């Protein structure tokens, strides 16, 4: 058992922290969050320093690292700011589908653009009134000549309004039984005629990650944009969700840590009733609970990411990390708001958006109940 980060991992962490300290301006983040926009040029800058696509191989301009290092950067960025940090780490959302399963030509076509910050990617999996049960979907892709023709509607597509490419789950074989065996993942470029963003929602949390509704109306896509084999889409999507849940656990871990840092600094300086808040026993115990839940989340998340990189992660292990890390983020951010009192509720003091962002992390990519279903599947197994 080795619990220490390696020298290069520590360097990545340090570089991510220095980048965030230099580029994540508090006032700018608060202002841009209202417009649900990212600061100009920040994706490019973080890509230039290797933070975007850190887990892509070097031959597609990636960092040649693993998911563990992605999680370290996600944690560090969100510790500095949960809204901007999570948006940056989502700038390559679902590109993992290409990374893990795409053929070399597809990888070469798209991954360098993402790793260089020239475009962002997103995933279009969910459909209206569907939840995360994707065993039946309505979006179709028909093979016409060498091309695919897509029709349908997708919802809860993060940053669909700014993405350069969409990884779209669609039914390519309507006759397959079960229907999931006839689903495929197809890459769609944003400029494709017939593709439109029909709605951008105002978010409760994650205000730099607005959810979009997409409409596909006879969108023509080259046949080579199919990821993996036809009919593999459902399984590949589930694999991606597993990976993404570990990524979200990393974001949530940083969100918890960032809220904790701010609460700790506040209670050490704020005096009420003649002493520092940090001198009250109840405050000390609140901090103890917060710190303990962050540590629990950290080791569960690191362990899940490490297992992923070893190629032996189980879906329920990713769900455990997501469940516990997002729960830690929620409870720590909630307590941070409480400890800061009236200031905690004010936008200027930041913890209020850590609190909202934590809620986003807790629900997106499966609610706590959905994670428990996955965990239960994994630990109970098949009943006789």
């Amino acid at each position, binding site marked *: 058992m080795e619990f220490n980060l390696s020298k290069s991992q520590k360097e990545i962490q340090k570089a991510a922290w220095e980048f965030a300290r230099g580029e994540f301006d508090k006032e700018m983040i608060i202002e841009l969050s209202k417009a649900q926009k990212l600061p100009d040029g920040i994706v490019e800058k973080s890509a230039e320093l290797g933070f975007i696509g850190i887990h892509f191989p070097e031959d597609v301009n990636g960092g040649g690292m693993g998911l563990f290092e992605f999680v370290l950067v996600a944690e560090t960025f969100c510790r500095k700011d949960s809204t901007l940090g999570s948006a940056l780490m989502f700038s390559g959302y679902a590109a993992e589908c290409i990374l893990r399963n795409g053929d070399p030509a597809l990888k070469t076509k798209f991954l360098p653009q993402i790793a260089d910050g020239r475009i962002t990617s997103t995933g279009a999996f969910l459909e209206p009134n569907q939840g995360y049960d994707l065993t039946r979907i309505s979006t179709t892709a028909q093979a016409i000549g060498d091309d695919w023709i897509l029709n349908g509607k997708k919802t809860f597509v993060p940053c669909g309004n700014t993405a350069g490419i969409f990884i779209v789950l669609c039914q390519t074989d309507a006759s397959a039984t079960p229907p999931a065996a006839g689903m495929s993942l197809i890459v769609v470029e944003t400029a494709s005629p017939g593709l439109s963003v029909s709605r951008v*929602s105002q978010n409760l949390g994650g205000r730099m990650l607005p959810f979009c509704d997409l409409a596909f109306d006879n969108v023509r896509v080259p046949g080579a944009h199919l990821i993996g084999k036809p009919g593999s889409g459902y399984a590949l999507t589930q694999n991606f969700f597993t990976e993404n849940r570990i990524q979200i656990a990393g974001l949530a871990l940083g969100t918890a840590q960032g809220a904790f840092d701010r609460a700790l600094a506040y209670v050490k300086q704020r005096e009420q009733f003649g002493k520092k808040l940090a001198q009250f026993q109840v405050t000390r115990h609140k901090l103890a609970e917060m710190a303990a839940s962050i540590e629990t989340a950290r080791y569960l998340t690191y362990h899940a990411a490490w297992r992923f990189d070893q190629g032996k992660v189980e879906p329920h292990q990713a769900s455990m990390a997501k469940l516990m890390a997002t729960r830690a983020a929620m409870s720590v951010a909630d307590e941070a708001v*409480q400890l800061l009192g009236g200031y905690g*509720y004010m936008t200027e003091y930041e913890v209020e958006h850590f609190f*909202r962002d934590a*809620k986003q992390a807790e629900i997106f990519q499966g609610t706590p109940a959905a994670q428990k279903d996955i965990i239960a599947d994994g630990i109970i197994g098949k009943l006789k």
Partner: protein
Amino acid sequence: MEILKYTDEHHEFRKRLRTFMETEVIPNIDQWETDHIVPKEAWRKMGRAGFLCTWASKEYGGQGLDFLYSVISTEEMAKTNHTGLAAMLHSDIIVPYINSFGSEAQKKKYLPGCISGDIITAVAMTEPDAGSDLAGMRSTAEMDGDEIIINGAKTFISNGINADLAIVAAKNPLEENPYQALSLYLVEDGTPGFTRGRHLDKMGFHSQDTAELFFSNCRIPKENILGQPGMGFIMLMQKLQQERLMCAIGAQAAAELMLKWTIDYCKTHHDAAGKPFSKSQATQFALVEMMTEIKVGRAFIDKLICEHAAGENVVVETSMAKYWTTDLAKNLARRCLDLFGDFGLTEDCPLARGFRDVRVMSIFAGTNEVMKGIAAKFMGL
């Protein structure tokens, strides 16, 4: 068996108030939330319709109604899912100070406007360095001939921008005992030296104009002291029971509303396989647990309403109720939001606003930690 004995008149009043909310308030809320303020006209409409300070006596233009009317007003406002038109704060927390402690001249001067909605009130206690700890207050009030000079900075003041009249807490710098130094003063909008600071951005309560207030050599006539000099703390203490009870009623009503939406949603929406959410066992148990908490809270609140209306001292119990119901509303919002799934993450879901709004309730009017401290003291611990 109902704990509260509502009469036909009460029910009739609730019906009229609900109609008023549906026509004059609810259609405007989205705009008010965007504007971060409610137009003064909305206050006047509410006052003219007889829904402000319902308890005020007829000689000042009021209706002299009992406490249950205040309860109804608070509950119905909570059901609108917005906080900007802070009628409960004005009618049942601030204006009662003037009614209880004001001179006859002050009452004649201000109460009619408070009732009609022409005078919107604010109470300025909290300071940047004095939140729940009022003894740490720094604002000063000094006598200068026939005038009083107020200096200081206040923050997190609800109705701060709209206020036509502020009740300001300040200390006499010559008095060393912080508890005997505090007095309350009536400061009208437009008094030279009384200015607004920033209109504060916050997590929720977006339609509520929370602001900083500044007093810089602000001179008011000496008649504008409210009650006796040095009695500020005593007056605050006397009013805290009702203030905390009103917060608890608001939190309870908000929690009831959020649970109702969630139950409706779970019954009318289904998963991809066509099974209504309400048929999932985990969802059922979650809803049952929350409904149980709601019922426990309701019984406690209704009992306290009875006791408070009967003039009993229930300071300890109202402190407990304030902390318990505001925690209930906060935790219930978080849990209910999970049942909405991703839809709960967008502002299209009404619960998203509720989730943001109720988070401040465990902080304002004395944090829940302060509530527990008070209860501990009274329990002889």
